């Protein structure tokens, strides 16, 4: 085993782990005084990791990927693409976080450290090519997420969210683990490659149960219907920056993990899981759209929106083709800034007293009081609704195009028709902000950090984003290709 190569390939994870451990010591010694400094250091570490992942992604000599640590871990374009997204999303969330907690005097150095460990866990999830590596990564990420959800320790809703997330998350982990044990039992190995070879020859019913259990557990992690019930509650209860995080980075990691799982070890049996994924996709689109209609809390609405988006992402996976995988990656790349931007806008809505505002009533007539903010939200909401010429349309475009190319015309037609239902509540944002008369008081200024994140995401989602499509398409094609190369 070539350790030098293994370390080289896992450089980002190793650096992040070390940074996390060192910063943990710093926080332990200095306490809350250095919380800000630790955050900045964590952002720097994540930037370094993102740079490293980007470097490996663009380095053509690794275009086909390579194994590390004797086949426990795989470095390829697919993993690096996902990692890049994960790191950038985590950075964005860290940038907009401190102010939220500062208002309550509850910002602590543990927060960025938990984010760092979470990022390490997520990186392992997307790179794992062995069931054991996968599970360790998944748990590392999940456990830090549980803590993050309940980070507002004396807030009832936050604690509730953390507890709910923990119990249901643990249940899902158990289901995954049980599925894995079945898969291991029938395949005789935990390595993806071995599993694929064994299943290609012989796929007994018991193994099918294993696959279904694993997929069900993963569906929980990505909040796909019918395992989505926890999402609105956790998203509503968790502190808003943490919700922004849950809706972005872990979702990318879980989707990427699901894709690798479905296409690599179970790739030879795509018939077995395709119908499950198709059902989950359509159900997520419909439930995500209908569920949001009656909500008044914006965080709940955005939670349903993320369920809705997972449905579109799964359509890309349901095709089981390289074009579909590439489309899914493009969708994720568009989804992340779109959702982080929306949550950032939400963070910028505060009463003059600093109280966070999070219902439709609070944003009435926003366009006359905070015109630029309202304009950014307008762009993001039309983008989420998938209306051209905004960039969110492109995500749906590539996904549905892949579905049609894979001859799933009926799936595409039903999916896109259901997306119109979703447009209804995105329009509600516009209606409330632009058509209604203003009501109540609003804080009139926001910090530069929030503006930066919001404006960057709004510009990316504006028609200017289309200029990125050739580059994004090439990189995603290459990343998807590396995933299929191994197969």
């Amino acid at each position, binding site marked *: 085993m070539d350790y030098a190569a293994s370390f080289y390939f896992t450089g980002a994870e190793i650096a992040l782990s070390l940074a996390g451990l060192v910063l943990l010591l710093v926080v332990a010694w200095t306490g809350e005084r250095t919380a800000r400094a630790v955050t900045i250091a964590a952002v720097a570490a994540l930037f370094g990791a993102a740079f490293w992942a980007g470097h490996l992604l663009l380095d053509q000599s690794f275009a086909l990927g390579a194994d590390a640590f004797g086949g426990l871990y795989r470095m390829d374009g697919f993993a690096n693409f996902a990692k890049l997204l994960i790191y950038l999303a985590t950075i964005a969330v860290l940038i907009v976080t401190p102010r939220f907690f500062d208002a309550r005097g509850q910002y602590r150095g543990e927060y960025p450290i938990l984010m760092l460990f979470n990022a390490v866990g997520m990186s392992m999830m997307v790179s794992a090519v062995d069931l054991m590596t996968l599970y360790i990564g998944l748990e590392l990420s999940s456990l830090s997420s549980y803590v993050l959800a309940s980070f507002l320790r004396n807030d009832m809703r936050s604690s509730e969210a953390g507890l709910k997330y923990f119990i249901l998350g643990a249940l899902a982990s158990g289901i995954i683990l049980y599925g894995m044990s079945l898969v291991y039992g029938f395949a005789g190995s935990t390595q993806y490659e071995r599993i694929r070879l064994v299943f290609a020859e012989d796929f007994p019913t018991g193994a099918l149960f294993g696959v279904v259990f694993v997929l069900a557990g993963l569906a929980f992690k990505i909040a796909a219907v019918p395992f989505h019930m926890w999402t609105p509650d956790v998203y509503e209860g968790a502190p808003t920056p943490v919700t922004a995080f849950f809706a972005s980075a872990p979702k990318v990691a879980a989707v990427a993990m699901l894709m690798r799982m479905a296409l690599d070890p179970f790739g030879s049996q795509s018939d077995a899981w395709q119908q499950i994924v198709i059902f989950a996709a359509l159900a997520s689109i419909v439930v995500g759209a209908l569920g949001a209609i009656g909500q008044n809390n914006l965080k709940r609405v955005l939670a349903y929106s993320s369920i809705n988006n997972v449905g579109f992402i799964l359509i890309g996976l349901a095709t089981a083709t390289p074009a579909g995988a590439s489309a899914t990656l493009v969708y994720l790349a568009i989804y992340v800034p779109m959702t982080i931007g929306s949550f950032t806008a939400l963070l910028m809505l505060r009463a003059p007293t600093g109280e966070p505002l999070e219902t439709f009533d609070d944003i009435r007539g926003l366009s006359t009081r905070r015109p630029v903010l309202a304009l950014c939200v307008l762009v993001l909401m039309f983008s989420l609704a998938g209306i051209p010429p905004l960039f969110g349309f492109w995500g749906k475009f590539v996904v549905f195009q892949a579905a049609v*190319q894979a001859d799933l015309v009926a799936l595409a037609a039903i999916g896109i028709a259901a997306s*119109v239902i979703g447009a209804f509540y995105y329009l509600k944002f516009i209606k409330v902000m632009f058509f209604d008369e203003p009501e109540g008081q609003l804080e009139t200024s926001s910090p530069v950090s929030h503006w930066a994140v919001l404006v960057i995401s709004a510009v990316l989602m504006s028609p200017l984003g289309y200029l990125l499509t050739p580059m994004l398409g090439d990189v995603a094609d290459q990343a998807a290709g590396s995933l299929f190369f191994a197969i």
Partner: protein
Amino acid sequence: MGFPILSLMLLVPLVASIACLFLDGKTARMVALLATLIDLVLGIVLWANYDIGGAQWQFTERADIFAGFSYALGIDGIALMLIMLSVFLMPVCILASWDSIDRRVGEYMAAFLLMEVLMLGVFMAQDLFLFYIFFEAGLIPMYLIIGIWGGDNRIYASYKFFLYTLLGSVLMLIAMFWMVNAAGTTDIPTLMQYDFPPQAQTWLWLAFFASFAVKMPMWPVHTWLPDAHVQAPTAGSVILAGVLLKLGGYGFIRFSLPMFPEASAQFVWLVLGLSMVAVIYTSLIALVQSDMKKLIAYSSVAHMAIVTGGLFAFNVQGLEGAMIMMLSHGLVSGALFLCVGVIYDRLHTREIDRYGGLAINMPRYALFFLFFTMASIGLPGTSGFVAEFVSLAGVYQVSTWATLVLTTGIILGAAYMLYLYRRVAFGVQKNEDAARMPDLTAREWIMLVPITAAVLWMGIYPESFMAPMRQDIAALDARLARSAPEGDSRPQVGTPAAHAANFVGGDHAGSPAGEGEAH
């Protein structure tokens, strides 16, 4: 590749639109007017330089800056005429909103200019997906225009407008994916020559129909239109009736007919049937309206039914008539909405009963209103006559019954328009406030006179408008020839009788030929 005039026409309103967001009301108005006038001038330059009888696609531009589709622009005669209609109506719309819009003027002008960019983009796009993007994107500014500056029930109308048209369009996108997958290109001119398997055409046609029928709008999916028209501000109604409704007709003539000729022929019965129902049904509804804008909105549906009838006649007259009908209706119904706007601005009501006898205190206004009423009915000398005559002549070759019903609709059209005019302009001045209203201002003159001139021009010398389209319509007719449906009258060419009817017979002595020689 020459000077990118089409891109420039898109760029000018786009830049002005962004600028308007940051300007105060007064400057924004000026900037918007200036930008639309520049676009009008560019449009005239475009028309002047359009080579009639030259290449089918002119002023083409192409840049492969996107993945999956390209930025490809170009126009033919059909697109040219619709572009002219758009750039002509835009300055009028800006003028119409000059005083009546007094809050959030900058945003209003920005939305309008964005609307212009997107409408022009639809007519210019030479790439299937670029077309779709422009086509769909138009929903956003229109949604805002209705929702922010509309009437009392604007929220309902804006939602209905948006969701109705969105649902219609998304299925078209799936059909486009299928087509591009099958044909391997997104280039519209290439796709117009591509022969899809007839089996698939049926489905593709239906998907496109779902979109264009809603945009058009055809009965029974027209119900969004009266709501949207009534609630939109005057200029919004003008642009909605003038240009947005034409997107549906343009879609049929650019996509459904040339790309799926077999399926189009297969569904002639459906389109003609819906058109017949629409023209009678909506005319009857229009007769009983008490709201002026609603009345004109229903009359739009009836006129659009004649367009669909003409388009699916599969012959040159039908297609030409439909195109002229679209142009004529764009001008006339736009002008009628302006006329309503003029008195709405004074009295702030659209109730017909609140007016009466306006010919007494507003004689000049009454004259214009009468002119456009007549043009809507189709009086000879106005554009409406040419449009109705030519398109019905086309339909007659396919279905005499449809022609009968559609013509009845025109008679009903005369009924409801004259009835409207009588109640508003003639009779006693029963409402004092209406009787005190002043006549047209200079600004209103400037709005109405150019449209009047255009309507007369199109009515007296329609050749100017038909000439650029002739070659394109002939090409389309040739493409459709293979599937054109047979007419229902089936005129038989008999053997000519040996003699004329008044031939007296053989009583005259000798052979007629001999007689003739003898004289």
